[in-house]
């Protein structure tokens, strides 16, 4: 399993594109929004948490189809499915690799983009914390969507139509944590719900993804 994780990480880093692309997209979004809504610091500070969360969501979405598609095409997914490691574990490892190459960099880069968007000083901690808790759910839910569409030739657009509605609860609670934290309100409830969604998704969705992958590989 560790070999698989290392292999996926190495592929993501060296095969070009996948790793940097999501980050670049995140950056471009943070540049485009002020260009679209105007440079007033007050307006930007107001919408910054939401923009950063939506940006993280979309940046995550961008690299989802790579989770399984390449392995499906060259047949290594069939080998992984027949390997002694259960497919559920393979799916979890692949989601983890996706999170390490996409979610984690997004979390690390988000304070810098917060600076561009005049994010209030007290929001930084909450932003990082909520993204840290929420992005694993994005990767796991996304791997389910990727497993659903793995055999399709024009799966990209369909993937976003399937996955984005599933992202709604994570987005709502994540953005709520940041906006409540910024206003100095208590954040216990949305934080717990966000963590709960992540924990539930990490625990249960790999089974659904593995089931779907088996159907697609049949």
């Amino acid at each position, binding site marked *: 399993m560790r070999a698989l994780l290392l292999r996926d990480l190495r592929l993501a880093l060296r095969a070009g594109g996948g790793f940097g692309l999501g980050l670049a997209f995140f950056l471009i979004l943070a540049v485009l929004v002020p260009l679209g809504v105007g440079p007033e610091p007050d307006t930007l500070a107001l919408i910054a948490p939401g923009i950063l969360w939506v940006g993280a969501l979309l940046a995550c979405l961008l690299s989802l189809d790579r989770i399984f598609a390449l392995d499906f095409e060259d047949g290594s997914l069939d080998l992984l499915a027949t390997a002694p490691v259960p497919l559920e574990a393979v799916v979890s490892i692949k989601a983890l690799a996706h999170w390490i190459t996409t979610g984690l960099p997004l979390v690390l880069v988000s304070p810098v983009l917060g600076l561009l968007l005049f994010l209030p000083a007290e929001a930084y901690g909450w932003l990082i914390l909520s993204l840290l808790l929420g992005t694993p759910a994005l990767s796991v839910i996304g791997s389910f969507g990727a497993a659903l569409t793995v055999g399709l030739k024009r799966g990209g657009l369909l993937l976003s139509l399937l996955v984005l509605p599933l992202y709604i609860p994570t987005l709502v*609670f994540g953005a709520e944590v940041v906006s409540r934290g910024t206003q100095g309100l208590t954040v216990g409830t949305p934080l717990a719900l966000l963590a709960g969604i992540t924990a539930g998704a990490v625990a249960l969705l790999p089974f659904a993804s593995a089931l779907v992958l088996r159907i697609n590989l049949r």
Partner: protein
Amino acid sequence: MASFWEYANPLKFMRTTDWLLPVVAWAAVIVTAVGLIWGFFFTPDDFRQGSTVKIIFLHVPSALMAINAWIMMLVASLIWLIRRHHVSALAAKAAAPVGVIMTLIGLITGAVWGQPMWGTWWAWDPRLTSFLILFLFYLGYIALWAAIDDPDTAADLTAVLCLVGSVFALLSRYAAFFWSQGLHQGASLSLAPGTRIDWAYKAPLYISMTGFGLIFLALVIAGTRTEIRARRMKALVARERMA
């Protein structure tokens, strides 16, 4: 009494619905017509809302059926996954477009009603938002059916999507209620005493709700029959080619 599972046999299903479909369809037309005509023309105007209150006879039944259609799809998907009855998968497929239309009717009549009452076509109210989200889930489900060529794979994948989607649709609903306070009133009808709607409205409302239920049933049966025939046609064409 024959077992319910007999209808998992497409032949038996077709034979039964041969006579059942016209009955249900005509019942749907008559009951809906009675409900709507009674509702529109023979109920008094509300003392504050005027005649706009009559939108309720379209709004509530369609909203009800939009949710029930998803629940029916969920049950049918479960039956397909567990017992592998093809009719069940096809019924789930047939229910989705009807559910979308019901959701749209609910949203549009709601907008038309909201304009004079709340002064806005749309508000990011939890009920409205969760309905819009339900609409998105329906779209994803239908798109996945349309995208996959192999019918059994499509049935399997959409059934799993329906199960997972149900969990997330429910979560989204709670998220929406958490996220914003609403303009929309609570449940219009409830079994608890002291309900807020007078019988003058309630009676035609119940009738149009029944009517919409029958419309849904008739459309799903018709859609399932179409799917079964399409499947049979494909099989015949394939056999022709083999020969």
